[in-house]
């Protein structure tokens, strides 16, 4: 999942902190495997956005791969 194009084109902001989400390195984990990915994140509270495209695309693919390991 070490791709750099995982954050969406649109503009997003954190409702609570009232600041725009920015690309950041985030660790995702499944079945004991970790990956560091660039995702959109609120620099203040740390809330990370997972979009539909990501969840049902690349993420699902990697989940399946790890499940088959």
């Amino acid at each position, binding site marked *: 999942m070490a791709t750099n194009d995982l954050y969406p084109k*649109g*503009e*997003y*902001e*954190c*409702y*609570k902190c009232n600041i725009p*989400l920015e690309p950041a390195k*985030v*660790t*995702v*984990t*499944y*079945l004991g495997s970790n990956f560091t990915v660039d*995702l959109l*994140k*609120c620099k203040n*509270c*740390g*809330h*990370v*956005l*997972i979009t*539909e495209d990501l*969840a*049902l695309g690349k*993420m*699902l693919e*990697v*989940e*399946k*791969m790890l*499940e*088959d*390991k």
Partner: protein
Amino acid sequence: MDHKEWREYEEKCIQERPPACMTTCPVHVDARGFSSAMKAGNVNKAWEVFRKTVPFPGIIARICDHPCESACKRGEVGDPVAIGALEKACATLQTAPPVKLSIAPSKRKRVAVVGGGLSGLATAYDLAVKGYGVVLFEAGERLGGAILSYPEATLPKQVIEEDISVMERLGVEVRFGATVGEMVTMTDLQRDFDAVYVGQGKSAGAHSLLEHSAMIDPVTFATNIEGIFAGGSWRTGSSSPILSLSDGRRAATSIDRYLQNVSLTAVRENEGPHETSLYTNLEGIEPLPLVTASDAKAGYTLEEAMEEAGRCIECECMECVKNCEYLHQFKAYPKVYARQINQNLRIVKGLHGANTLINSCTLCGLCKEVCPEDFDMSVLVREARTEMVNTGKMPPSAHAFPLQELEVANSEAVAFTRHQPGKGTSRYAFFPGCELSGSSPDHVERAYAYLTDKLDGGVGMMMRCCGATAEAAGEMKLFAESLQKIRQEWQEMGQPQMVLACSTCYQTFKNHLPEMEIVSLWELYDEYGLPDEAGSKVTGVVAVHDACTTRYEAGIQESVRHILKKLDFTIEELSNSREKTACCGAGGLVPYANRQMANDMAKRRASESQADYVAYCAMCRDSLAAQGKKTYHLLDLIYGDADLSAPAKRGPSYSKKRQNRLQLNAKMRESWWGEMVALEKKSYQSIPLKISDDVEQILDARMVLEEDIQKVIEHAEQTGEVLVDKQSGHLIANFRPTSVTFWVEYSKDEDGYVIHNAYSHRMTVEGNE
């Protein structure tokens, strides 16, 4: 099953067995592969296939007496393929370079071959290739024996010379004018050589050579004299050139084994002509007559040969693959699948490439029904799923959702067991099953009313899931617990006869709770007559979709048809019906593990007929209807609430079904038993959602429940952890109740939350969870 049992099961599939033409051919020419290349006009490739098992191919192609044709399956639908004539055409048309010889390193042993006819030549050829020193004794002045007497037009001398010249390339020493018995004696040969093959023509005095005996073992061609082997047309008593060739080759195999000191007799069953166990269904194959050559003397032209070869059926079995979308989509056949699944189970490290294969079978049993060898994929798939669960190798995403459904269906809020109101005992107990309760709860009540009206002795009610979900998921411990619970309640009720509305429940009870007497709801409607309010307003032609779990329940199938006739419907029988019925796609938990496959199977089933379908399983109905096929549940017709002119209606979503089950419990307990049911309401359940039909379908396909969405919104409201899509203004929130993170895209309006989208993932994200 252990590894050996898997291999044995794998062997049941005869798809890889050779076709009849090939096994009937004494040297096993792959006539199927040959015809296939000829059909494509690929003459050189066909020639390659032919000479792979035939030494002296130019000669044999022109004179072979083609016994294969007598076994050719095409002969049962038209004339057999003219394999002989095709080989002849191939020999004349081919332009391939001479065969490349690969000769094994010298074995330092010498063999004498007596007789330069076809069988002797073949023995000499094979042994020389294997690295033996071969001396060929020919009484005359030329090699070939009987083949020299064919007319030039049939077998040109030049072809003979070319083919036989291979002897020189192989380093075979030929001694002409060497009549054994006169110039040299058998005793000389026995002394000077490590083995001797006597392969003489009919006319030759071979018998006299083998003075003391003419005893030849028909399998090994060994005589009862140590080191002497014999074969050829004087043995076969026929003038078949291909039998002589075969004798020579088989004798060479024996001599090789003899000189290597290994068993002469082991694994020789499939030498020479034999029968095959390959099955080929000829149904639907159009009869085609032989293609005749315009010039009979010259034989087939290339075009004629291609046409004739095109008549080859290319025999294979594939019966199950033709009948099952799942087997078809994985692009092979059960023998291969069995191997893949077995391997998948044994892998310690590396990718388990067959997980999807294992989780995409609906366990319907049609394969076994159509297989000539009773190969049942579902047996292997069940076994594999169970083993995967036991070893912790089942992908968590495959069956988590249906197992959760099972848990809810058997929870206290849904499941209940009671005697009939006002009765202290139950001679019967109605077990509607979770599918019908979720899909059409009203029908559960109406059926119960019917049963209490018609049957004496008390009809209790047992509302819960039969546990088939656990079994299909390979969760055998859970399944056993579920069965135990049913058993216990049945005991407490006084061992009533179980009335089953669902065919899957029926099989579960029949196979796993054999101590219980069972009857199908349909058999009772048939026996006791239709309810008074019965009757569809309109009637017409319908096709019955038998549930795969009633495949061998002829009684139930009959009852369903009787009921439809009583309702004045005309029944169309699908080509796959009764014991050959095809699955609706919803079995085996496939909709959860491989939704696309389930949909494709449903589509295929739906397209079998233009007629509207009648199903008697709620799951079948919903699965077919979801593909736009007009499908009624039998109860829709019995109670007259089907609208035959309305378009196909989808069944309820997973969310709705869950709510239906909860409400059915409360409603029945209140109205039938007068109980006060206090529905325990969780805080999030009062969050009002607005979901359009389109969005509902998406959520359903993604197995996102309304309560999952409510939990996300509750969490967002409580924590303020919400993201905003600036472009659309939509709010985006997420929450992970257990092992799945749900995301919801929504907006608020005055009286609720408008849901635009929802999705989920199983990974955990640092910062979010």
